[in-house]
């Protein structure tokens, strides 16, 4: 049976993990490679690396990091952050990334999704979308959620699937950082309207939130950052508890 995926997310700046990470037995918590290795050992199903640096050196530093991560771990990983062209994607895939995640660039130029899918295949193209509710309407936001658009979340989800995206990473900005649970209603509606896998993001605080995202939210995967980094939710323990609640997971 296909299992639900648990995905720790690492924020990267200039080749280092950004948010404080509190991991026992880790020599250098700022080293993304070592952190990735640790999560792989804990049976994380995938990893996401989100690059938030904005220097000129960025592309090269990121490519180097991707190569080191690919050398070190034997589970799939996705790289995102500022990717805006076929060339950007080619470099990351050539260095060993399994998937890339595009966000604002896809909103600005939706044909990019078609171009990437045609060039590299849908299986490695994740479209990330940040949204929040404005007057009870889910609206897509840009630049890490700072700039609102008029685009309806569900229309956008359908459009990216039609254009060849292989997966959607949906972050609810209303839930992100609250630790009060994922946006399950919106997640379930996206799942009903498109036929590609959906990763839930934003709001994870405890084990039950993951259960809810998979049952009520019908998500295929769930992503979280700080609760894993700070050990608030222990990954192996989470998987055991999901299994006890009859949710298919890889132990």
């Amino acid at each position, binding site marked *: 049976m296909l299992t639900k995926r648990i995905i720790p997310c690492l924020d990267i700046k200039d080749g280092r993990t950004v948010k404080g990470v509190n991991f026992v037995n880790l020599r250098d918590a700022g080293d993304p490679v070592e952190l990735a290795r640790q999560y792989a050992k804990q049976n994380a199903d995938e990893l996401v690396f989100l690059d938030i640096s904005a220097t000129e050196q960025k592309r090269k530093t990121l490519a180097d990091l991707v190569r080191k991560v*690919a050398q070190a771990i*034997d589970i799939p990983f996705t790289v995102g952050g500022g990717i805006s062209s076929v060339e950007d994607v080619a470099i990351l895939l050539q260095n060993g990334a399994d998937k890339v995640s595009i966000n604002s660039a896809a909103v600005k130029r939706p044909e990019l999704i078609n171009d990437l899918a045609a060039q590299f295949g849908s299986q490695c193209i994740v479209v990330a979308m940040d949204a929040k509710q404005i007057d009870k309407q889910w609206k897509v936001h840009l630049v890490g959620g700072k700039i609102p658009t008029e685009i309806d979340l569900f229309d956008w989800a359908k459009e990216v699937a039609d254009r060849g995206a292989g997966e959607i990473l949906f972050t609810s900005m209303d839930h992100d950082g609250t630790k009060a649970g994922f946006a399950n209603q919106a997640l379930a509606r996206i799942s009903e309207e498109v036929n590609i896998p959906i990763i839930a993001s934003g709001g994870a605080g405890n084990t039950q939130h993951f259960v809810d995202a998979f049952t009520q939210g019908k998500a295929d995967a769930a992503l979280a950052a700080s609760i894993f980094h700070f050990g608030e939710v222990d990954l192996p323990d989470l998987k055991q508890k999901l299994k006890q609640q009859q949710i298919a997971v890889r132990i």
Partner: protein
Amino acid sequence: MNVVLVNYGAGNIKSLQFALERLGVTGILSSAATEIQEADKVIFPGVGEASSALSKLKESGLDVVLPKLKQPVLGICLGMQLMCTHTEEGNTPGLGIFDVAVKRFDNDLKVPQMGWNTVLETKSPLFDNLDAESYMYSVHSYYAGLCKDTIAQTNYGIAYSCALQKDNFYGVQFHPEKSSKAGSQLLSNFLALTT
């Protein structure tokens, strides 16, 4: 050991090379017929679209070379699919090594299938020292049905061949290079094959 990865412009080969490196083996990328024919083991990777992949194979004449190889050959993902008789993707003829056609998932489940799924009913040394139901990582929209060459199966709406074997030819739908310890064990088993 001389392990050659068939180079025909397929995607993410780095991951496979790194997985072999972790097993202490260097995977040499090559599109040269003689180098492929003289290898101890040949791996036929593949990520991408079937018809363009077949065109690239034909350009270098490898569509003729590959089916005649005598050493153990392992097709992965699209590589495995191209070793079948035909695939619905781009209505593309295959190399005809495995006696089964490749179809698109046609049910209510999400396509592509993306993630870790159980490998069942294994019957091959390729699965030695693996748990009876190990998890492997797959990403695919097309599948080979069950047939006489099936050596392991997985369920996704229907049961399909997640591994095939005919004589010295092996194929797996999943990505062993991305399937943690189980995948590494499978690659190691392949490298240990003698015929």
